[in-house]
């Protein structure tokens, strides 16, 4: 029996996994280790040198509070860094094929362009029109607030930003931890700084200040680190507090998605209404589970062999999806998979050629079929741009014809819905567009 492969091992994004998929991080995590060591070293020095003196001379509560703060900071940091930020899994081949069919229609107006215009779909969120962009890597229309992180190569829900300091994206699932990390870190920073100053001043009361500094040089190091980092951390905490109260993400704030100057009726549709409610949502809202199922097992695809056979069929006329994929230069794995579905539909349509009207259409399109099948096996090897473009045009017309095809028989002869039922499914996206 072959070794079972877990899903994280075949994960398409640029992430690192540890502990058999339990831990998920971005590829570059050098700065994350710097963050960790800065916090640990500073706190270590504080506990090793200042706390001993302060516990003796002031109160033992000081190290206790320090330890609690330190543990909270570290646990929120690890939670931010090691958890899934809310990655939206890439679409399945069938789903991608369906979407490809849906977005084919609006492109007909500009068939001559080499690079198609960015594909968008508009949705209304609480009365506010939001444009959803199509993600060529993930093959999905990104849901509102999601964005593709180029460093991790994933679409992340409620994408905030990619934070190299925590070595992960900050998104829907770990924004809370990130915010609490920033907040508690600024508190820890101020706490250590205050304690160090108290320590030095207490020592300076017995002696002069220079001697006090000489007696505990570690305090100086801590004070310097804290002094320089506290400003940026407090600034960041303040900024994120503002974002949390207005239920925005850094991404939306930078882009100015909801600023008034774009139009009078521009408001944030995701806001819950009041500052307190927004804060509560960020801090205590529902915790969405990871959608990746990283530790699940990969189910081997049985259909792959079948699909390959189909693709060798020389009679295939129009594998629209196929060509398009090649044309956009998507990643290899997804490409192959979507190809197969493309084949499926093509073959499917072939099978239906008993239908008279259908056959007419197909014969009509045969020249085009040859053009289309410039896929690896048949391709003589023309300039890719040129043929690609041609294909593109042909695909358009083809698909439209197909749809017409499909619509006609169904309206006319409803009784024979056995095989035709499928066709409607294939064209569903389009028929809704009409």
């Amino acid at each position: 029996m072959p070794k079972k492969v877990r899903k994280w091992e075949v994960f398409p994004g640029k992430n690192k996994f540890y502990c058999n998929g339990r831990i998920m991080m971005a590829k570059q995590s050098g700065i994350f280790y710097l963050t960790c060591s800065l916090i640990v070293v500073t706190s270590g020095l504080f506990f090793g040198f200042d706390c001993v003196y302060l516990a003796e001379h002031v109160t033992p509560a000081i190290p206790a509070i320090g330890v609690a703060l330190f543990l909270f900071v570290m646990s929120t940091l690890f939670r931010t860094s090691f958890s899934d930020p809310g990655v939206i899994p890439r679409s399945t081949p069938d789903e991608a094929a369906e979407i490809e069919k849906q977005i084919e229609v609006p492109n007909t107006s500009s068939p001559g362009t080499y690079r198609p215009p960015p594909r968008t779909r508009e949705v209304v969120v609480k009365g506010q029109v939001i444009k959803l962009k199509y993600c060529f890597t993930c093959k999905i229309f990104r849901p509102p607030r999601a964005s593709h992180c180029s460093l991790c190569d994933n679409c992340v829900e409620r994408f905030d930003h990619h934070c190299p300091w925590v070595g992960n994206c900050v998104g829907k699932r770990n924004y809370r931890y990130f915010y609490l990390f920033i907040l508690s870190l600024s508190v820890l920073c101020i706490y250590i700084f205050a304690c160090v100053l108290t320590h030095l001043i207490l020592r300076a009361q017995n002696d002069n200040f220079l001697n006090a500094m000489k007696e505990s040089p570690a305090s100086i190091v801590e004070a310097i680190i804290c002094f320089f980092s506290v400003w940026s951390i407090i600034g960041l905490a303040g900024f994120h507090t503002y974002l949390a109260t207005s239920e925005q993400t850094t991404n939306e704030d930078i882009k100015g998605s909801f600023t008034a100057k774009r139009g009078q009726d521009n408001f944030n549709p995701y806001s819950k209404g009041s500052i307190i409610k927004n804060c509560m949502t960020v801090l205590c809202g529902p915790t969405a589970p990871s959608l990746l199922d990283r530790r699940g097992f990969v189910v081997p695809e049985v259909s792959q062999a079948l699909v390959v056979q189909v693709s060798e069929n020389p009679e295939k006329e129009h594998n629209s999806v196929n060509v398009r994929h090649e044309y956009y230069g998507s990643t290899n794995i997804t490409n192959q998979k979507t190809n197969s579905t493309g084949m499926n539909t093509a073959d499917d349509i072939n099978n239906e050629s008993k239908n008279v009207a259908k056959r007419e259409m197909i014969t009509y399109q045969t020249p085009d079929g040859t053009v289309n099948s410039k896929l690896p096996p048949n391709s003589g090897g023309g300039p890719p741009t040129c043929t690609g473009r041609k294909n593109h045009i042909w695909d358009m017309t083809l698909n439209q014809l197909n749809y017409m095809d499909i619509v006609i028989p169904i309206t006319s002869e409803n009784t024979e819905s056995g095989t035709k039922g499928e066709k409607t499914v294939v064209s569903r996206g389009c028929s809704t567009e009409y």
Partner: protein
Amino acid sequence: MSEMENLAALPVNQCIKIFVQRDFTDGTAVKFQNKYPPELRGKIEESQFSQTLNTLNGLYAEAESLSSRTYCESCFACLTAYLAYLCMDTYYEKCLKKVNRYIEEQNKTVYVPRGVMLVDPVERGLRVLEICLLNETNHR
């Protein structure tokens, strides 16, 4: 019963699929468009389909709602520095399990006997609700 099992055993990745997309009109919470797909005509009644979707949407709405239960759970987890999540299921996860059970039950009693199967949206990353038409393979 045996026929039903046979149907379920068909390779699902070869059949025709319908995709019900997400509905974002009320925000980013999980909700699926309650629009009857014409491909289901003759298999599933419109009222049955919309009832299923309403129940599904209701279950998701419950998971996403800002109830006092979620607040308490989050606050408790926060107090334990989120170590509590290592050994307990969140309310959201419980709701998703409920959804899974509901879909299974619906498949068994209503959909699979009529040649239709719902796929739990969690398996598709909550992007779409996939509906498989089991009797109609994509290629022969």
